[in-house]
């Protein structure tokens, strides 16, 4: 089971480059695709989901170019787009039955699986009610259920936890972890904590290019010994932000506790901390921006 992305580019009308020679090779496990807004994550997701054609490069599913044989991948694909609609007059069961038929699933198996999936996404009680009355979070859960309908070998989920409450979000993360075994799961998000919880592999994308790809441990190792906690008065915070990369702040009785990513301790009294993936993510992006700025000056 192998999904290869080779030099994939996508240029939209008006010469807008969403992806530039993006390459990645994926096997079973959860890939967390991280990147800021507009980095090209959703474009890459749509290309992998056979919705959009790349303008350059190719995607191979078990050696088959999906440009010429998209159904090879579609047969085993589960896809939860970032934005999707529903048919408001259908109930959750009817909607899933319709999509099961579109996906070519045999009736009895589909019926059983729909019941199980609705239990799984906690919608069994609302299964017979029209989708038009569902809240955003409930619709998102229907979306998750439809992505799993055909027992996919490749599961692509684009910003799946948006609209979910914290409890549902944790349930979904756990579900992804459990599903990951013998599947390729691609989780695209800008919520680092979602990736931190489930990803076995991380790819960081910015301005349409792959910045870094590796295990979470490798990303964390890159900022090991470079994360500090500094306590400063509120009025000194702007100066601290100007001089250093501050990944988070919290107001306490003794001042503002700032989490700083820096090669050396920003203040003599700074306390070293264990790095998180968010620290690594921000540090990597900041380093990239600095490099780009330096290249622009040259």
């Amino acid at each position, binding site marked *: 089971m192998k999904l290869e992305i080779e030099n994939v580019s996508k240029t939209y009308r008006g010469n807008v480059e969403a992806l530039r020679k993006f390459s990645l090779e994926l096997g079973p496990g959860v890939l967390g695709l991280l990147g800021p807004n507009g980095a090209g994550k959703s474009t890459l997701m749509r290309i992998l*989901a*056979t*919705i959009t*054609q790349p303008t350059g490069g190719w995607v191979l599913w078990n050696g088959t170019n999906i440009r010429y044989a*998209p*159904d090879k991948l*579609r*047969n085993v694909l589960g896809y939860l*787009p*970032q*934005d*999707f*609609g*529903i*048919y*408001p007059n*259908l109930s959750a069961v*009817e909607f899933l039955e*319709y*999509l099961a*038929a*579109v*996906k*070519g699933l*045999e*009736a*009895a*198996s*589909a019926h*059983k699986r729909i019941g*199980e*999936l609705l*239990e*799984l996404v*906690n919608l*069994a*009680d*609302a299964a017979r009610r029209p989708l*038009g*009355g*569902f*809240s*955003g*979070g*409930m*619709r*998102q859960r229907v*979306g998750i259920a*439809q992505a*799993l309908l*055909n*027992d996919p070998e490749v599961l692509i989920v684009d910003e799946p936890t*948006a*609209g979910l409450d914290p*409890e549902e979000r*944790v*349930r979904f993360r*756990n579900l992804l972890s*459990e*599903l990951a075994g013998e599947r390729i799961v691609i989780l695209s998000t800008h919520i680092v904590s979602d990736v931190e919880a489930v990803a076995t592999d991380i790819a960081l994308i910015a301005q349409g290019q792959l910045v870094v790809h590796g295990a979470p441990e490798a990303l964390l190792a890159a900022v090991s010994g470079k994360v500090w906690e500094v306590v400063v008065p509120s009025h000194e915070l702007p100066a601290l932000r100007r001089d250093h990369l501050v990944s988070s702040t919290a107001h306490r009785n003794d001042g503002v506790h700032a989490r700083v990513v820096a090669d050396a301790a920003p203040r003599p009294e700074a306390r070293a901390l264990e790095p998180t993936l968010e620290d690594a993510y921000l540090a990597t992006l900041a380093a990239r921006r600095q490099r780009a700025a330096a290249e622009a000056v040259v």
Partner: protein
Amino acid sequence: MKARRVVYAIARADFLERVRRYSYLITLLFAVYLGYAAGTGRISLRLGDYRGLYTSAWIGAMVSMVATTFLSLVGFYIVKNAVDRDRQTRVGEILAATPLTKVPYLVGKFLSNFAVLVSMVGVLALAAVAMQFLAAEDRTFHAWALLSPFLFLTLPAMAMTAAMALLFETFRFLRGSFGNVLWFFLWSFGISLPVVTGLPQLDPSGLWTVYQSMAPAARAGIPGYVDKFSLTNADKAVRVATGFHWSGVEWTAEIVILRLAWMAVAFALVLCGAWFFDRFDPARSRRKPVARPRSEGAATAAGTAPEFPTARLPITTSSHITPLASGARHSGAWRLLIAELRLALKGYRWWWYAVAGGLLIAQLAAPLDVARGPLLAAAWIWPILVWSALGTREARFGTEQLIFSCARILPRQFPAAWMAGIIVAVLTGLGAAVRLALAGQHAGLLAWAAGALFIPSLALALGVWSGTSKFFEGLYTAMWYIGPMNRVPGLDFTGSASGPQASRHALLYLGGAAILVAAAFLRRARQLHGTY
């Protein structure tokens, strides 16, 4: 001053958003086609079997009548999306959270609607000027005689069209497909209003005004003239009335005031719309809007989409999903066909089925001519909204990405959706088919079958290509009214008006259906290849 700036800003933004879309070019091309059709005599103004010499006055009156008549019908469908666009793009919710009130918002949208229609009228006015020089029947160019009908006749009619489109958008039940169908009948009624009411003042289109001006000159200059006046297609030869001398409508104060009054009526309709406009508040709609998940959150927060109580399961649940057996991935096509049919018919109330059933029984019970004539016509207009969803449902409800990422959409889902449309046509018109079969009218049966295939094919093609149901709803209603209802042979796709030509017409409709389905197939194939 501030209100004027707000109105201008809304009108400008809406107009720019529209004219920068590819579809605007198509609307201008439609205007060019109308100009071409008028210039080449495919559509002409007639006084019985005659037409006037192509003077500035005649051409101005004729082309402005073409613009008034056709643009008030088609233009309605073109501009009836000003508020809907803000609803779909969520810009409406942003605007609703500002101090902007309903009247300036709707006036701005009205001006944008009007500007789009005026730009099309402008194309036709230019075509009229070119027509006089190309026809060269009268080389004396009178700018006022040629252009004043556009000013006094067409522009008020366009204002009415722009206002009606906006008014329809402010009523929830007129916003969608029902409103699109209803407009055709309202438009027909509006054209014939002076004749129906006997009040020449009730003439929003201005056709009656032109007729009243021309008729005396026609009586004086055309031998045997009997008050015939029509704007029609070139289906029979026309002669130039050399003795007919008409220098154009004399724009008396009374006529000008009457025409300007329609502008005032249009403005009053916009203000009336403001009264009913929900200002993007979903709570004011009886049903909740169809929206995508991300934005639903806002609606939920506002308390408009109550979350059903669902039992909480432990966070650390285990995913007990039975793996699919390999054979479970290949179901028969019939299952998808049933799913498509169920989707097509879902959401209709009991009385919809009762009317369809009643029409079916009536076809079986009534005399054959009635069964295959008015009853079949009624049976085949009733499911118009079922057919108009063909090919557009995915775009309308935002399910394209879910559907198009599934395997074998073209060989399975596409024909299943088309077949579902055919089944609806067959079931609703079955009574007439049975009667034709029992009477041994094979040509009639063939015509019936051609109609049953043609309707969903037309719906599918227009839906897939346009991405909206409006075009089918407008075009099909017009075809239905002209063909089956007014029994115009050739345009009657049920075949009841075709007489001995039934088989020939049936074959033409079958050929048309094949071309339409092929066109829809090609477009859907392109969409699936991600080139849309």
